[in-house]
């Protein structure tokens, strides 16, 4: 049935809380801010409901009923996480996730029902979850600006964050500006346009904007999570590879696959040549259940006419960067405040070290972090907006990729290609060495000078040039932090420093743009 396309929602004259990003973290933040009585606007680069890692993939949650199981779950993650977690946050996240998921059930999320007749609520299917979140956000009176990527923050004269500006990319890149009493960054992590499932919207824009306002990051060395995907595509869903046999070009088994897709042995084999997978360890009676659990794992294989249970198919490892790594903007206080007043952070835009330390939060912890940090950041932003007077004037804070300092002419495509050459290959980023890191940094640091001098806004009002600048900044934070951790811990594998150094069980902060610093 044909329908007239709705006109794009107008940008309001001002708002109390501006949420940037409309995935789980952004939608939970918007709901919390609205519940606190704030007028809320949510701007998404794409469409709130399909944007981001969760919508395209799905979310297992870190979801444990009240009781002794929680203590056990926390202890298990602490043991794996390399000593970088904080227990109080983990306790809080388990509590908040439990409550939030009960709300989802009340709102009608179609959870599966177990044999005992109870709903099982520990897993959320992405499209269903985010469609429901959009409905709730709309019902809460939040103004949603779709296809409206933010490109820079607005600052008050005293440096307090006072809004953001961006482009409406379905209106020829027309600029929008919105003054706000507080801003929540829920813009996701940075996956460097690697093509990993649903992650091309995650180019680190939020961290660039925040760093321009002076915000700190943490854990950027833990940015080297790779997802496994069929080599022809980008379906980075790893769970079903627990049933795989991995073989090399000759058909020789390369590794015991019992550890699943994170298996470093398989990644090392992929450095040597093509690697293939066949899910031949899946008992026939499980195969239908596998399909219903992860339909979009099987969909691309079906479309290619590949039966993954009987035929081997080539696989590759695709960088998921900080999205399923743990680095991001440093959470500096309760309410997920950043180190900049008026700026709050949620989801993958934030460092998740508090809950998942040095290991990937993909596959459950990130999903629960998004829910929890979103709720806390939204509530705290609403409070901040009430308690602080609005400035009479603001100034836009964006520089690289939008306001070049000189004449130049470097193109965003060139920047992106160079960044990708240095961060996408397993050989550079998964298996790191001091020499490799220094070599990449010398090129990337020098390119930053070219970018600040000469990368101006692209035809879409700066969207793509800002993405390029954000990716370049991330690559530099990531490798500078990796050098500052001469050891292997969690996600970071330093081939020149195998093993963890007990004296380095602490987080590494980083920041800066022209000059990048790190500190313990």
């Amino acid at each position, binding site marked *: 049935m044909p329908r007239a396309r709705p006109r794009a929602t107008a940008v309001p004259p001002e708002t109390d809380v501006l949420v940037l990003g409309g995935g789980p973290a952004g939608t939970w933040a918007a709901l919390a801010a609205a519940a606190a009585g704030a007028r809320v606007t949510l701007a998404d680069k794409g469409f709130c409901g399909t944007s981001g890692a969760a919508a395209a993939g799905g979310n297992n949650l870190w979801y444990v009923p009240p009781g002794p199981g929680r203590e056990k779950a926390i202890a298990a993650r602490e043991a794996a996480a390399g000593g970088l977690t904080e227990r109080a946050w983990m306790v809080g996240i388990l509590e908040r996730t439990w409550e939030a998921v009960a709300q989802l059930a009340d709102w009608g999320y179609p959870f599966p029902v177990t044999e005992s007749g109870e709903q099982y609520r520990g897993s959320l299917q992405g499209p*269903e979850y985010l469609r429901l979140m959009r409905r709730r956000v709309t019902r809460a009176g939040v103004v949603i600006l779709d296809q409206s990527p933010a490109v820079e923050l607005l600052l008050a004269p005293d440096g307090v964050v006072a809004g953001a500006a961006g482009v409406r*990319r379905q209106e020829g890149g027309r600029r929008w500006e919105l003054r706000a009493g507080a801003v929540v960054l829920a813009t996701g992590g940075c996956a460097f346009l690697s093509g990993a499932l649903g992650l091309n*919207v995650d180019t680190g824009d939020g961290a660039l904007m925040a760093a321009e306002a002076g915000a700190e990051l943490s854990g950027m060395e833990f940015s080297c999570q790779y997802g496994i995907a069929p080599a022809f595509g980008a379906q980075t869903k790893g*769970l079903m590879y627990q049933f795989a046999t991995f073989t090399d070009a000759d058909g020789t088994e390369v590794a015991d696959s019992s550890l699943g897709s994170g298996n470093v042995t398989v990644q090392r084999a992929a450095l040597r040549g093509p690697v293939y997978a066949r899910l031949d360890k899946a008992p026939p009676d499980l195969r239908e259940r*596998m399909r219903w659990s992860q339909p979009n794992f099987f969909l691309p294989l079906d479309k290619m006419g590949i039966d993954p249970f009987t035929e081997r198919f080539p696989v590759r490892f695709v960088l998921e960067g900080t999205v399923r790594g743990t680095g991001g903007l440093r959470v500096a206080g309760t309410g997920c405040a950043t180190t900049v007043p008026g700026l709050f952070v949620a989801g993958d835009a934030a460092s998740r070290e508090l809950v998942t330390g040095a290991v990937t939060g993909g596959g459950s912890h990130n999903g629960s972090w998004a829910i929890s940090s979103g709720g806390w950041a939204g509530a705290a932003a609403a409070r901040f907006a009430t308690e602080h007077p609005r400035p009479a004037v603001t100034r836009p804070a964006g520089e690289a990729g939008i306001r070049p300092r000189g004449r130049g002419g470097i193109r965003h495509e060139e920047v992106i290609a160079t960044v990708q050459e240095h961060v996408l290959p397993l050989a550079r980023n998964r298996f790191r060495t001091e020499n490799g890191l220094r070599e990449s940094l010398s090129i990337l640091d020098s390119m930053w000078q070219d970018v600040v001098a000469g990368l101006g806004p692209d035809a879409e009002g700066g969207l793509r040039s800002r993405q390029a600048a954000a990716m370049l900044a991330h690559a530099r934070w990531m490798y500078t932090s990796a050098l500052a951790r001469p050891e292997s811990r969690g996600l970071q594998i330093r081939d020149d420093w195998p093993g963890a150094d007990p004296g380095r069980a602490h987080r590494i902060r980083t920041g800066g743009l022209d000059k990048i610093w790190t500190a313990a």
Partner: protein
Amino acid sequence: MIEVLSGDRCVDCDICVEVCPTNVFDAVADDHPVIARQADCQTCFLCEAYCPADALFVAPLSDPAPPGSGLTDEAALAAAGRFGEYRRWLGWGKGRTPGSSRDENRFFTARLRALQEETGP
């Protein structure tokens, strides 16, 4: 990547234009939308999920399908039931049951965890 927008099936609702997270489609006045920026497609299949007319086919390739590929052949894809496939799995559309009600990820995550505990990290 998105390969086919079926003019026969499309009802000009422009939902794909609205929901694409990477802004691949352009609306056209009084006509079907067009695939305007295929290179930006991230192969997330969500336009297939949202299309009420099962008019879209996203090939599972990260790059454009090679010339002559069956993945661009509308008639062959239609005959093979390839339109609207993701929407069917999700159980979206009138009279369907949400696929999430058959989600058994809990079983597979528990199984993986047990395997990892057996063999160490």
